[in-house]
C-alpha cells in the first residue's frame, strides 16, 4: 500500500488539531479553551464520567459540531462511532454498512467489504436494527465506523453494551489501526487494562473529570 493516505505517510503526522476551542450550551460552558495536537499512529483515550462533555468534544473533533470559538484542523477525513449508534432502522445490517461506503466503490466490492466487517463482528447481514439487541446494534455501529477505512477514527463509548470478548476484539483492532498509522480517539469511563497492555507504547490517556473540559494536549 502506498500514497498520501497510507500508514507510512500518516504515522507521526498531526492529523487533528484543536486550538483554544470553547463550546457552551445556553449558559452552561461544556468545553473551555481546549487545545490538542494529535498525531497518526497514536491512541488517545478521554476518560471521565458521563455528562461532562466528552461526546461534544468528539463531535467537534469529527467536524460535526461547530465550536463557539477556537480553531479546529482536521487533516484527514474522520470516522465517528456515535454514542447512540445512529443506525437507519429500515435498512438491513448490510445496507447500513454499504450506506456509508464511497459511491465510487463498485457495489460488489462494497458488499464484500461490508460482509467482511459484519462477519468480524458476528452479525447477520440480513438482520434489521430493530430485531437486534443493544449489543448487536453497538457492534453494527462499530463495524460501520471501521469499514469506512479512515485514518482518523473517533469512538464514543466503544465498549458500552458489549461483553469482554468483544472488548478484546475492539482493543485488538484499535491497536492494529494505531500500528498501521491511524489516529484513534476514544472516550469512555475507564481504559480497559488490556488496551493499556496491547497499545502501551502508543496510548495517551487524558482525564476529563469535570465540566467544563479544559484539556491541553500534549
Amino acid at each position: 500500500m502506498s500514497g498520501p493516505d497510507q500508514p507510512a505517510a500518516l504515522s507521526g503526522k498531526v492529523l487533528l488539531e484543536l486550538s483554544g476551542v470553547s463550546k457552551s450550551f445556553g449558559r452552561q460552558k461544556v468545553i473551555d479553551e481546549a487545545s490538542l495536537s494529535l498525531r497518526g499512529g497514536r491512541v488517545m483515550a478521554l476518560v471521565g464520567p458521563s455528562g461532562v462533555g466528552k461526546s461534544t468534544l468528539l463531535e467537534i473533533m469529527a467536524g460535526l459540531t461547530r465550536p463557539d470559538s477556537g480553531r479546529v484542523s482536521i487533516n484527514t477525513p474522520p470516522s465517528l462511532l456515535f454514542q447512540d449508534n445512529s443506525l437507519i432502522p429500515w435498512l438491513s445490517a448490510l445496507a447500513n454498512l454499504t450506506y456509508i461506503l464511497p459511491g465510487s466503490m463498485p457495489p460488489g466490492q462494497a458488499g464484500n467489504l461490508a460482509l467482511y466487517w459484519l462477519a468480524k463482528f458476528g452479525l447477520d447481514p440480513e438482520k434489521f436494527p430493530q430485531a437486534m439487541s443493544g449489543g448487536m446494534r453497538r457492534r453494527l455501529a462499530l463495524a460501520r465506523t471501521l469499514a469506512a477505512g479512515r485514518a482518523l477514527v473517533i469512538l464514543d463509548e466503544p465498549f458500552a453494551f458489549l461483553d469482554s470478548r468483544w472488548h478484546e476484539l475492539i482493543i485488538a483492532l484499535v491497536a492494529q489501526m494505531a500500528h498501521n498509522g491511524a489516529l484513534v480517539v476514544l472516550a469512555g469511563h475507564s481504559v480497559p487494562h488490556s488496551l493499556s497492555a496491547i497499545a502501551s507504547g502508543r496510548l495517551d490517556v487524558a482525564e476529563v473529570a469535570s465540566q467544563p473540559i479544559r484539556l491541553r494536549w500534549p
Partner: protein
Amino acid sequence: MPRRPKDDENRQWPIGPAMPDPGDWESLPGDDGPLGDFPGPSPEGLDLSAIGKARPKGRALPAWAPYLISLGLWALALKLANRAFGPALAPGPGSVVAELWRLALCLDLFREMGQTVFRGLAGVILANILGLALGLLAGRASWALRLTSPLVAGLQACPPIVWVSLVMVWAGTGSLVPMATVFAATLPFVFSNTAQGVMGLDGRILAMGRLYGVPTARVWRLFVLPGVAPFWLAGLSTVLATGWKAAAVAEFLGSHTGVGARIYWSYSQLRMEELQAWTLALIVLGLTLEGAIITPLRRKAAKLASKGAA
C-alpha cells in the same frame, strides 16, 4: 447478494490505513467467538403449523355481512320515508335500484363516476406533487414551518365551499372547479404531513451522511424518502378520503358534469329516484375507495411507521 470475501480478495481493497492487513486478522482475538454467535436452527425445530390459523372464539360473521346489514338498514329507511312522504318525494328502494340499473345500462353511471374520480385524482395528484416538494423543503427549516403553521392550520380548517366559490368567480364553471377545489382542500394535509415526516428524521444520521460524503441521491433514496413515507402515506389516505367528497361538492355547485352535477340536476328537477340512485352510487364509490386504496394505505403507513420507530 454479494458473496463472502476470501482472504486474498481482502488484500486488494483500496481502503485507508485504518483497515488492518487482512492477513493479520486470523491472529486477532474474537474470530472464533463472534462467529459462533449466530443463532442456528434449534435441533428439535419449532412447530409453526399453528401460526396464522388461530381464530377468535365464537361464531365469526362473514366479511360481507356488515355490508348486507347496512344495505338492509338503508332499504328500511327508504321504505319508512316512502310511507311518510309518498313516492313522489321518497321513492322506495326498488325504484332506486331500478334507476341505478337504468343509469348503468345507458353508461351514464360509469361516465359520470369516471369524471368525478378523474377530477378528484387530478386534484390529489397535483396537491401531492406540490405538497411533497414544499413539505420536504419546509421540513428542513423548522423556522419556516413554525412561521407558516397558523396559515396551514387555517387552510386545513377551510371548508371546500370557500374554494368552490373562489374558483367559480375566477374561472367560471367546468372541470377546473372540482379539480382546483380538491387541490386546495388537500394541499395543506400533504404539506404538513410531509414536513412533519422530514422533521422527524434523525438529524445525526443526516450528519453521518455528510461525515462520510454519502452521495445526496443515496441519502434521499435510502434515508429521507423512506423516513418520510409513513407520514406521506398517512396524509395520502386522508386526502383520498376527503378528495372525492370535495370533488362531488364542487361538481354540485360549479360543474355541469360528474356525479355531483347529476345530483344537483336531479334535485332541481325533483327526480327523486335518480337523486337517490346517484347518492347510492357515490356511497359505493366511497366504500370502494376506502376498501381498495385508503385502508391498505393506512395499514402500510402504520407498518412503515412502526419499522422506523423501532
